[in-house]
């Protein structure tokens, strides 16, 4: 029983802090212990980086993909599937949800990928520093038009979204604060782009132009002064609303689904005490994300939140590909593979707007449910895939299997997955139609097939849509 508890908890941690794990990995991690695994995840530098040369060799166009999908998606998918630093990549995805920046306008995956690289590098570092980095990120500047925010003509786009979507949340500032905040960021721009033709794209570079900065006095959230952008960020992070907003994002992304962001000023968090705990860690550590994550993953509220979160399309696709294996090398076809999250409603590097994606239940509608189930069923039904073979090999060692043993074995090795009794009854009725299965006496092929079909049925269940 202790083994099952440890494996179940480790599977939970890896689904949330990463993109899931197969049984071999779960056993190895469980042997090391839960807290040690959390520490390892929090210190990605202890694990080898992804081999970028293999990507270069197979998909050279994905290194500097320009504006056309899917090569930008190919690049990120390759990292997501191959990373041995799952939390680093998961945090990059988290910040991509928050600082949602998209190709629909940027028209430049080179720059979007550079932004993701920033999230990898600084995503578990200090939030105050990250804000500063994002404010200087040319991709963000272009996305929210700050290069058009001039001392003589204020453009509010960045100033507004910084407050509404990146730090405080609606209702924690006035229209005047938006204006003053925008003024403080005048002159924050990037070097003029060199035209594409005939040279191709050149990397963008941050530039501060003091002559375009409005150095007049500003009044922002009750403070007065000749503020520049950094002063604004200092004021923002000290606001109680800031910690609450960022920690609620963390909770929604890693622990359990919250209502959509616009409802936050009105609806209380589903676990106020959990948010308070995170906010305390955020404040005490002076906004160090690694410290907040450590508190979160080691907390009971996290450990007890199994299957309280509808998997995002990125979690579905990456989780499935990592689980079944065989997709490590970015062979031809990777482009189509990389678009699957978009079919499920999450076009990575191209969110529908600066608001990012609506999560939780809103991932699900008729078309997206079809897309996710069809994708997962196709992958786990391939009995030659290494991850599926590994399940078959483990089941094989148990000799011949009764219908109940087949169902329990598959549920266990695919998760462990917990299903309600009615669902289980359906799985059992299916297994009963096949009867006892065995790999001996020429039954090997049929037995393989039945395992594959059982896995297909399980990934198609309601329960499997949760992580």
């Amino acid at each position, binding site marked *: 029983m202790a083994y099952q508890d440890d494996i179940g908890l480790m599977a939970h941690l890896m689904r949330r802090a990463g993109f899931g794990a197969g049984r071999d990995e779960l056993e190895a991690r469980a042997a090391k212990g839960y807290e040690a695994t959390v520490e390892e995840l929090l210190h990605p530098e202890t694990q080898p980086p992804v081999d970028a040369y293999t990507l270069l060799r197979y998909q050279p166009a994905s290194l500097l993909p320009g504006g056309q999908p899917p090569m930008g998606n190919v690049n990120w998918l390759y990292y997501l599937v191959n990373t041995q630093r799952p939390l680093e990549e998961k945090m990059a995805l988290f910040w991509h949800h928050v600082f949602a920046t998209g190709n629909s306008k940027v028209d430049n995956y080179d720059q979007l990928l550079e932004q993701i690289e920033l999230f990898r590098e600084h995503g578990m570092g200090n939030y105050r520093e990250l804000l500063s980095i994002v404010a200087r990120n040319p991709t963000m500047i272009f996305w929210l038009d700050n290069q058009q925010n001039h001392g003589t003509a204020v*453009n509010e786009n960045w100033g507004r979204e910084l407050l509404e979507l990146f730090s405080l949340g609606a209702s924690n500032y006035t229209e005047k604060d938006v204006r003053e905040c925008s003024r403080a960021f005048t002159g924050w721009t990037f070097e003029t782009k060199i035209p594409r033709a005939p040279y191709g794209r050149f990397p963008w570079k941050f530039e501060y132009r003091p002559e375009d900065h409005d150095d007049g006095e500003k009044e922002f959230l009750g403070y007065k002064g000749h503020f520049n952008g950094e002063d604004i960020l200092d004021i923002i992070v000290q606001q109680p609303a800031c910690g609450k907003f960022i920690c609620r994002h963390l909770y929604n992304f890693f622990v359990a689904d919250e*209502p959509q962001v616009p409802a936050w000023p009105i609806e209380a968090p589903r676990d106020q005490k959990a948010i308070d705990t995170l906010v305390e860690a955020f404040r005490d550590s002076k906004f160090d994300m690694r410290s907040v994550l450590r508190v979160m993953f080691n907390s009971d509220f996290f450990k007890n939140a199994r299957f309280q979160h509808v998997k995002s399309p990125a979690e579905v696709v990456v989780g499935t590909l990592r689980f079944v294996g065989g997709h490590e090398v970015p062979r031809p076809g990777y482009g189509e593979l990389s678009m699957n999250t978009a079919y499920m409603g999450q076009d990575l590097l191209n969110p529908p707007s600066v608001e990012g994606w609506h999560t939780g239940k809103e991932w699900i509608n008729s078309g997206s449910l079809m897309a996710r189930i069809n994708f997962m069923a196709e992958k786990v039904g391939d009995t030659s895939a290494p991850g599926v073979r590994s399940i078959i090999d483990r089941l094989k060692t148990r000799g011949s299997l009764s219908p109940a043993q087949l169902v329990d074995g598959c549920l266990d090795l695919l998760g462990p997955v917990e299903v309600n009794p009615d669902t289980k009854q359906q799985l059992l009725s299916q297994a009963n139609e096949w009867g006892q299965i065995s790999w001996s006496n020429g039954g090997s092929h049929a037995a393989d097939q039945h395992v594959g079909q059982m896995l297909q049925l399980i990934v198609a269940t*309601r329960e499997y849509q949760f992580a």
Partner: protein
Amino acid sequence: MATNDPCVVVLQLTGGNDYINTMIPYNNPLYRDNRPAVGIPDNNIIHLDSNYGIPDYMAPMKKFWDDKKLAVLHGVGFKDSPRSHFRAMDIWHTCEPEKVGTEGWLGRVAREFDPNKENVVQVVSMGPSLPRSLVAPGVPVACVAGPLERYGFLPQVQGNERAHVLDRFAKMYSPAIGSGPVMDYLSETAIDSLKGEDIIKVVPQKYSSTVQYPNSPIARKLKGIAQVHIGEIGTRIFYCDHSTFDTHAGQNPGHGNLWKAVSEGVEAFFADLREHNKADNIVMLMFSEFGRRVHDNGSGTDHGAGGVAFVLGEKVKGGHYGEMPSMKAEHLVQGDLDPNMDFRSVYSTILDKWLDLNPVPIVNGTFEKPAFLN
């Protein structure tokens, strides 16, 4: 289901469409004063009448206007417009300006039409996400993300086995007691989609047309809607969107590219419907979550308040409804047009005059009903 029941197509202009450059008050000197950078040059304005014009990139809309099939709803919005995309869109979708609503106005319409859920394809949305407008408990919505013919579960299972597997699937998704609202929602979505897929998948097989749609995402969506409508499967509410109208910078040519795609798509759509003699029972509503700031910011326009909505169709009484709110500085609210027509007025007319429903419980109140439909 009668095949000439009135239907509604909503085309959402996501991001905040710039009212003033869409319906240009070209005689008003304040227009030039406020739009030094993004104003449309006089020779690029197509006059609709002595007051208003449209930019030339909206040229196809002129024909609808001339045929008196385009109603222009001026100054639409709501008081205390939040200037947040998120929140403003939510308000349009739910008709709840004061609290966060969970039900959409069209979801309520669908429930009125079909309380017993006899038709699971009554509402069709083109795109991978489900707009909140369409959400209501017990209301099925077919969200079609790709080509219609690929809509369906487990396409890899074919032949005799298919019916059996889908039956097992349906049983796994049958409602389970006490499993929670999200589980229930999953059940409902799966079961309804399962019923709907056979109906939707075959629609393209019955469709042929001489109309060539332009190659744009919105045209593809509109073509899908035309196919479903022409296929007569009882769909009454259609939804699609085009984005992003959030033209803070680079408004010219950005706004032009957006409207060119939309107006050409809409032109092809109505031509297609007319060719199939299926245009008479369609009304199309185009709206955006807010208009944009009156004074431009040097290369674009920031978030504003009052906006413009359009209603088009064979049965629409074309013309202006309401008037553009004053652009005089003393009448602006934080630099924005003060809305003078509640957005729920637009809905109320459509509900009352077109769909024959009592608008009050659907839009949460009584509002004026501009007479753009008989």
